[in-house]
């Protein structure tokens, strides 16, 4: 049995390693200093000396490990290296092997002292390198394996380290570990965040912790934020205090945005299409789903008899759109009463569609005019709360005209309250945002595009399968999952560079994207109904950029006038080869 260890932890002296931990590698923020040749030479000699010690120590440590020498000296030699270089993870592993050995072979008193010594050593390491993953992880391990862990002391250590740096996420994580292991009442932790926030509102880490604690302390499953309504009101008051104190502090605004919440909305069918031609049923949802997963089952029956079909999506993964091929004898020339049943833990929806004898295809779709699809973004808060918050933000806006956070929050609140009524104001505020925060202009104009498209969709007549988004300064497209059944779509005269979810437009026959900024058609793929595509005055410069159009099998006409590729004399012949049978305008 080993003798009782008395650890000499870190040697302080001219040749010890821990004096140099400020320049170990990849530590951020090392300023490059110009030095003379003489200084460089002196540094070189010093480093050479230091290197020898380091390499010698490493060699000793590895040899001891190989020989399973789990003794006092092994702790000392690894300790010297780790004090300087706490990311040398293999040596922490060796120390854990040593400590495990000690725990099962030494007397209890000595085990206790050794583990306490380890905690003391770690504290010294953390003081020098408070952001070392390895040191914090080893502290967790040491506490988990300690014979008499003193968790109260650990919580105090967290307090101390959070005083040095209130944003050290390693320490916050260690704190959560301590709280969990020692069952610290979460109410006390909540009070701790209140105290931290009251000394400095600009403490994102505390706001974050608060968001987590609230969901555990005051859970409410009916609210999308997951927190009880009465508690939320207190939080609104606190966060208002924060942003009235410092309107430029982003922490409070991010927290405020969270309080306003986003409701998930219940899964719902968006449309059903039955096609006799294609012998196919298509269904679309308002969310991406994977049929057969997450407890989601979709049943199809025709004329009262269940039909066993396989539901497929484009990428065999989560998707808005799903198809099923129907055996030809089930959708023949007679009347077909189609019924779709969607079942999951939370949903049971039955939807019927009649494909009459003379019809080639039939469509059912959910009305787009109902406003609630688009006001979900801030679904957690009540109208009363939203109005109160809007009044407060408008008051702050009067005082701080150029404050972007206030402007943005006003936009969100108005949009959640009534997008139709506030539409002009919203657009004005967004224009102001692009002025006061030009760096994020694209974020704001994309948001504008979203609201403009939402309004257009809401105003669209439910029985008309045509929608016009032209001349709306759109920079991006949104909610294409709601346009699955649209036959004619006009997106001309906007500023679009791409249409990422274009394949959702499964019914479109006429698509007009004239006068935009498209440099490629990569996204116009697998549109089975597309017949006429107009891309006049875009930035398409190469025939290769049209390759994806080959997957649109019904394409009959393509207008490319005013694109850079029109200037190339060979383009017409090349496009003809690529898309044979399509009428090309160049």
């Amino acid at each position, binding site marked *: 049995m080993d003798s009782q260890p008395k650890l000499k932890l870190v040697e302080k002296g001219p040749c010890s390693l821990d004096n140099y931990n400020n320049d*170990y590698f990849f530590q951020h923020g090392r300023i490059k200093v110009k030095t003379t040749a003489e200084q460089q030479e002196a540094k070189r000699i010093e480093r050479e000396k230091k290197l020898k010690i380091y390499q010698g120590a490493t060699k000793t440590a590895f040899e001891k490990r190989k020989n399973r020498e789990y003794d006092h000296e092994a702790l000392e030699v690894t300790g010297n290296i780790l004090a300087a270089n706490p990311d040398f993870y293999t040596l922490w592993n060796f120390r854990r092997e040593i400590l495990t050995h000690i725990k099962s072979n030494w007397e209890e008193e000595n085990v206790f002292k050794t583990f306490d010594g380890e905690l003391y050593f770690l504290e010294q390491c953390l003081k020098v390198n408070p952001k070392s993953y390895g040191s914090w992880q080893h502290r967790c391990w040491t506490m988990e394996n300690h014979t008499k862990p003193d968790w109260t002391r650990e919580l105090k250590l967290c307090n101390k380290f959070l005083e040095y740096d209130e*944003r050290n996420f390693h320490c916050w994580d260690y704190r959560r570990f301590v709280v969990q292991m020692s069952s610290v009442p979460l109410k006390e932790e909540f009070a701790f965040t209140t105290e931290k926030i009251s000394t400095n509102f600009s403490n994102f880490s505390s706001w974050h912790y608060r968001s987590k604690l609230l969901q555990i302390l005051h859970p409410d499953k009916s609210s999308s934020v997951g927190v009880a309504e009465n508690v939320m009101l207190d939080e609104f008051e606190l966060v208002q205090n924060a942003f009235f104190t410092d309107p430029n502090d982003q922490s409070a605004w991010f927290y405020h945005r969270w309080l306003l919440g986003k409701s998930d909305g219940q899964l719902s069918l968006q449309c059903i299409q039955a096609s006799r031609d294609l012998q196919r049923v298509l269904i679309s949802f308002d969310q991406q789903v994977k049929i057969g997963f997450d407890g989601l089952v979709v049943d199809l029956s025709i004329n009262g008899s269940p039909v066993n079909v396989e539901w497929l999506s484009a990428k065999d993964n989560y998707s808005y759109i799903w198809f099923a091929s129907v055996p030809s004898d089930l959708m023949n020339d007679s009347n077909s009463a189609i019924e779709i049943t969607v079942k999951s833990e939370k949903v049971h929806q039955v939807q019927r569609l009649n494909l009459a004898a003379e019809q080639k295809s039939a469509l059912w779709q959910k009305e787009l005019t109902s406003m609630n699809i688009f006001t979900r973004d801030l679904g957690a808060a009540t109208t009363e709360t939203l109005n109160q918050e809007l009044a407060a933000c408008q008051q702050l806006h009067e005082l701080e005209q150029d404050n972007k956070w206030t402007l943005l929050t006003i936009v969100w609140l108005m949009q959640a309250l009534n997008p139709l009524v506030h539409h002009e104001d919203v657009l004005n505020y967004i224009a102001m945002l692009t002025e006061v925060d030009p760096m994020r202009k694209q974020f704001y104009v994309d948001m504008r595009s979203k609201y403009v498209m939402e309004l257009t969709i809401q105003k669209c007549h439910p029985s008309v399968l045509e929608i016009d988004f032209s001349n709306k300064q759109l920079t991006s497209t949104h909610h294409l999952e709601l346009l699955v059944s649209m036959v004619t779509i006009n997106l001309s005269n906007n500023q679009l560079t791409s249409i990422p979810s274009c394949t959702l437009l499964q019914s479109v026959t006429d698509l007009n994207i004239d006068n935009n900024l498209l440099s490629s058609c990569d996204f116009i793929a697998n549109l089975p109904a597309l017949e006429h595509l107009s891309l006049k005055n875009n930035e398409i410069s190469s025939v290769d950029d049209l390759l994806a159009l080959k997957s649109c099998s019904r394409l009959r006409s393509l207008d490319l006038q005013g694109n850079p590729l029109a200037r190339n004399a060979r383009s017409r012949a090349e496009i003809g080869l690529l898309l044979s049978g399509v009428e090309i305008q160049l």
Partner: protein
Amino acid sequence: MLAVNISFRSQGTPIKDASIPENAPTDLFLDKHRDFIAAYGAKKDDYEYVLTEYLRLNGVYWGLTVMDLMGALDRMNKDEVLEFVRQCQQPCGGFSASIGHDPHLLSTLSAVQVLCLYDALDVVRVDGVVEFVKSLQQDDGSFYGDKWGEVDTRFSFCAVACLALLDRLNAINVDKAVDFVMQCMNFDGGFGCRPGSETHSGQIYCCVGMLSIVGQLHRINADTLGWWLCERQLPSGGLNGRPEKLPDVCYSWWVLSSLKIIGRLHWINKDKLIKFILATQDDETGGFADRPGDMVDPFHTLFGIAGLSLMGQANIKPVNPVFCMPEDVIRRIGVKPQLL
């Protein structure tokens, strides 16, 4: 309820930021960067080199990837590298950061990435790698970094990325792995190390990248997350990793690649970020630093170059935003991570 007097301050908290010196570089010195990386591995007795042995294999990946992106992979010693990687594979199948060190998921992903760059997976025992990764998955779907039990979403990314590159994703329980990552999502739309941990751009990259590989980006609230990410850009043009922190070139990778994956790269100001990244070059030695005027290293050099690549810089190969490897390599392997 806390009592706080409402008071108005004409000037709020000053923004923490770096400044770009007037004489900072504005051109890209590719030749110097190639020389910097090529020379780096040659200084084997250098103090810094020895002290960073615990991440040697990661360093090899950084160096080779940035050289490949700069079209100079042939300047590296392929045989020496492959022999080193081979020797780092341990009996358990995982790779250690260097010879004599312990196996870990972080170095295992680097090893697989290096082998993919050289199209040389046959040099190692692939089944062993798969077994190692598989052995680290826990019942809740999370991954240990090694047998000692540290859990972190970084390891979820490493595991999934590693297996995707080996075309062996079916070896683990992907659904559970996704469930665990989703438990780490926060009020701001971002992700932390573990359930309950604060959002950090590096962890966002790992979690978003992981969800991209398994095709489940629909679980992310891309608008909320994109807003938080684009707010990382500071007046200097540089990006920070969390609110109220200093900008750093490595975040031009973690933030930018995350934005690219969720289809919102254009929400930051590219010109200003390019200016910031270029200003962190050392025009004497080559290489990039975290901030203008600081010491350069291979880590920041890779992420500086990769960031420029994502923003379409000429003379640099396109980089894949999920794997941080050249697109042509990812195409050759046939992996197709999801992008919004």
